[in-house]
């Protein structure tokens, strides 16, 4: 056919490359994002190799109590003589794991609810969204505290509690994306091909709705880490013998006037990780071209 050759030359850049280079461009320009990637990378590395890197057993008590940072104990020791550096390093595992697991769970179920509500509309939408509204009326943290108080502490309960608290955000974003996407003609085109509702939702709508969801997920990881720290600080965390950041902070609270390192270093760890993830989230938002109003 003759119009093949008429196709404008500008149409020839293959798309996958274009998208990848966009990520690269944004991250190459954005120094905060580079800082975020580096710091987060170090923490992830530390979390994975914690047992090897950590100079001491995080729960090993010594008589060298509340010693300041020194060559022997890089970040000092706590009131029971445990090495702070080793404890924070092991706490990284829990914190990052809780952050990622929580958001994965919230993302999966939140997006599921949001997509189903937006796609089918009608009474299904009403029922789901009234529940989401109900949950939205409570501060996230209150829900998490309530759930842990009812179901008890422990890693799984903490993850479920924080995930449930974040679920409504994902449901809202997913639903709003679906509402606009289902008006698109390519969805009609999918329907006339006889595709099932499930296939249309998963293969046709969802890929187009992912950009704001990814950005929201990134930001939520940092909130989840803060949430876990807060729960641990209140004694509603994973458990009293697992050194999480919140727990270390809580233990050090009573000695803050005599041993500043017990408050500063775990707090610094939380701050650095949360800040890094937020920087990365901002860069992703630019790269994926998500409007601020979407998230």
């Amino acid at each position, binding site marked *: 056919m003759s*119009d093949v050759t008429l*196709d404008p030359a500008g149409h020839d850049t*293959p798309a996958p490359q274009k998208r990848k280079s966009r990520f690269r461009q944004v991250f190459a320009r954005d120094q905060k994002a580079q800082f975020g990637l580096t710091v987060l990378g170090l923490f992830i590395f530390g979390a994975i190799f914690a047992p090897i890197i950590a100079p001491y057993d995080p729960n090993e008590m010594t008589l060298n109590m509340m010693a300041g940072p020194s060559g022997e104990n890089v970040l000092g020791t706590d009131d029971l003589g445990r090495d702070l550096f080793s404890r924070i390093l092991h706490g990284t595992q829990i914190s990052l794991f809780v952050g990622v697991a929580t958001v994965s769970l919230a993302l999966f179920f939140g997006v599921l609810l949001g997509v189903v509500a937006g796609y089918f509309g009608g009474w299904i939408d009403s029922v789901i969204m009234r529940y989401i509204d109900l949950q939205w009326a409570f501060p996230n943290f209150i829900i998490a505290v309530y759930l842990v108080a009812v179901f008890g502490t422990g890693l799984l309960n903490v993850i479920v509690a924080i995930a449930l608290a974040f679920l409504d955000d994902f449901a809202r974003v997913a639903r709003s994306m679906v509402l606009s996407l289902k008006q698109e003609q*390519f969805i009609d*085109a999918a*329907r006339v091909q006889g595709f099932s509702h499930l296939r249309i939702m998963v*293969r046709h709508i969802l890929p187009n709705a992912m950009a704001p969801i990814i950005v929201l997920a990134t930001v939520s990881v940092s909130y989840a880490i803060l949430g876990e720290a807060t729960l641990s600080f209140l004694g509603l965390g994973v458990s009293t013998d697992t050194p999480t950041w919140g727990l270390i902070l809580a233990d050090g609270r009573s000695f803050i006037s005599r041993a500043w390192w017990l408050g500063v270093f775990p707090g610094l760890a939380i701050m650095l990780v949360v800040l890094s993830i937020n920087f990365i989230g901002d860069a992703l938002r630019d790269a994926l071209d998500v409007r601020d109003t979407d998230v």
Partner: protein
Amino acid sequence: MPLLEIDNLSVSVVHDAIETPLVRGISYEVSTGEILALVGESGSGKSVSSLAIMGLLASALRVKHGSIKFEGHDLLVQSDEQMRQIRGRDISMVFQEPMTSLNPVRNIGSQIMESIEENLGLTRKQAKTRAIDLLKEVGVADAERRLKQYPHHFSGGMRQRVMIAIALAADPKLIIADEPTTALDVTIQAQILDLMSRICREHGTAMILITHNLGIVARYAQRVNVMYGGRIVEAGRARDLYAAPRHPYTEGLLQSVPRLDQDRSIPLRPIQGSPADPFAEISGCRFHPRCPYAEPICRSKAPEFEGGLACHFPLSQSAKEAV
């Protein structure tokens, strides 16, 4: 037995318990391998009636009465699941707007192959071979490489070719083309229509070609239904209708577009007024407010559809001379 048989189909839009008819009892047939054109202005009910065939009417739209028989089975009584099986496999559709009919984040190959895998149950590898064949058939050069490309790499005409390939994926018996060339350049329009009519001929596929341009259908459609205000006002063979329109609206449509076979000194004559508002009460023949030949009876009594025409005063040479 005709492939598709629509009998007295009426579709209404329901809003706040008020029903407004959009399609007012239309009947027509499509035979195997035939190209039938549905011609009319926006709001004449041509798209709504075809969405009714697909069973994809918006929730506010209801079929009030009538039947749509496809190969003898009434589509209106099929379950959702049965209709899903029919869509894509037996009846497929090409839309007006090729720029937005493809999923922007998935490559062309996956979109064509998905339709093939779903509707024909082929393996991924077989589907790929068929997708390449289909792209070649619709005139996309370098098909194998193009499978990996995304919609934004394709021009409007090329996207419409891809949409046609997708519509053809399961070798359907009927394709509904809803203004397939309206959004395209004039030069591309003819190529796409040529392609579609060639495909129908070679595959023995029937096609309902929905358009508002009576001029372009004459070359491709065997028969034409002219719709106005939710009714078919004139039906007939394309050649006859083109040469000697009997309904004043058909004549108006023909006079309002330029024709190559006509003296260029004859000015184009637009149809006066605006299309019939479905929400307005119009007594008698719905075309009478715009009809240059209207008589008192046109205002009071709606003409019956008889012998392929719904008009109290069909045009003949004598009527034309009188004006």
